């Protein structure tokens, strides 16, 4: 398989990554090199093999529904690009 320029543009949009017009073709060439490596997988028959998502196959643990964290809002917001009155600021979303 190989990705078209339109497909590269589409996945960049899905990934929220701006790609400059000048980067598109170089990105396409490198991604297609990677996909030709990945395609080697398809040569192997995996019918009936159960996918393995995790080496230890654990179920997620449950814990008692009690508060375990303290309020550290100030510390966490100290590393944010822009906050005001305890809120994270982003560009206006709804007119």
């Amino acid at each position: 398989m190989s990705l078209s320029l339109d497909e590269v543009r589409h996945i960049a949009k899905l990934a929220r990554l701006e790609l400059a017009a000048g980067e598109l073709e170089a990105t396409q060439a490198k991604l297609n090199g990677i996909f030709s490596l990945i395609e080697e997988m398809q040569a192997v028959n995996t019918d009936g093999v159960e996918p393995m998502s995790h080496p230890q196959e654990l179920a997620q643990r449950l814990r008692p529904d009690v508060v375990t964290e303290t309020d550290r809002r100030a510390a966490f917001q100290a590393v944010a690009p822009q906050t005001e009155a305890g809120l994270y600021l982003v560009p206006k979303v709804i007119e």
Partner: protein
Amino acid sequence: MIDSSLKDIAAALRAKTVSAVELATDSLARIAARDGQINAFVTVDRDGALAAARAADARIAAGDAGPLTGIPLAHKDVFCTEGVLTTCGSKMLANFTSPYDAHVVSLLKAAGAVMVGKTNMDEFAMGSSNESSHSGPTRNPWDTSKVPGGSSGGSAAAVAARMVPIATGTDTGGSVRQPAALCGITGIKPTYGTVSRFGMIAYASSLDQGGAFARSAEDCALLLSAMMGHDPRDSTSLERSYDDCSAGLGQPLAGLRIGLPKEFFAEGMSADVRAAVDAAIAEYRKLGATLVEVSLPNARLAIPAYYVIAPAEASSNLSRFDGVRYGHRAAEYTDLNDMYCKSRAEGFGAEVKRRILVGTYVLSHGYYDAYYIKAQKLRRLIAQDFAAAFEHCDIIAGPTTPTVAYGLGEKTADPVQMYLGDIYTVAVNLAGLPGLSHPAGFGAGGLPVGLQLIGDYFSEARLLGAAHQFQQATDWHTRAPTVQEA
């Protein structure tokens, strides 16, 4: 003194022939003199180190010292450190000071280890040469025109250049074992789930695992023992009893069955690496181990499967970097979506972007089964191969890398060439097994060669014990590079 074994340093601290402040001062002086050549450190925390060293000296005076109390150490910059810059090798986090400690960092603080700084790494741990770091490449202490390996290249180079005796790392596809091999030191990645990932900035969550670097297996065992353990804050952390990783150090090699995967020795290994690996295996045999041929027929599929699973998980994990709660935000944008796209385009480097794009594609509608599920099925076949091999042997041995360290810039133009260097390490991560690399001699250009040992689940003590027995009979691990001092 910091060139001595951890056991000897701890004895000297208890005997008051050296203080933790003196050790920290020595380590900081070596960093000041040597790191201009190497660039192993992103951050050096002089004040924090000296304060921690004074606290360690107080503990030693009070008779409350453990094996790591007062020992200088460096953390890979992937581990969050409260109040200390945590960049993960990225412009995205170039100004990020973590509000909390990673679990591993908390454990080592509690053990009294003295953090002198944070080490350089491939951006978000994605790379095999340490060249994708926003802080510039780390250089191999054996030859500064060569790469140190990656992604934990800064930690490996810092230990190899004798700036610190021990350092932490992480290994998603070989990122502890490969730089350990290329820098001529010992490094271990334990069984998946044994070292908490809390506060360890995520790359590929089903593969990421913390690990340890030191000059010897004996010292690795002390560091790793302090890092392992259950942590309820990591949902994949295993609730079980954790063995002392030093427990196997005294076990002789007689009777140990070492499996040699025929696929690892068939092709791809350069002649100099082959010669050193063969000689190291012959030494194990001389020391009483028996050799058996085993087969890992699906090992060749590990690279394609890894380069689907890891980017898929990375694209999901790295979606958190949106310029809102932390990290880089673009200076100019038109609306919220444009702010996301520009902040991420500016904050991430080329390799990280490529992996996010590959991951986004393989998880996108219509391709999920053909790529992600297919790769997970191969992952099962690879794990089954190892299980079958361990019916015939106790540990598996082979090369860690196909070649010795290559030149800076040699593989950066072609990501696929870089990926192929991971051929012997990635299968271990896919299966979730423990693996270590220890020095096994030297190859072309006088550069170090590593021997990889792979064990069954939870066999860290056995792996470290085997490596320790080898290191009792050989002196490769004591060889140190000569680093030009400023």
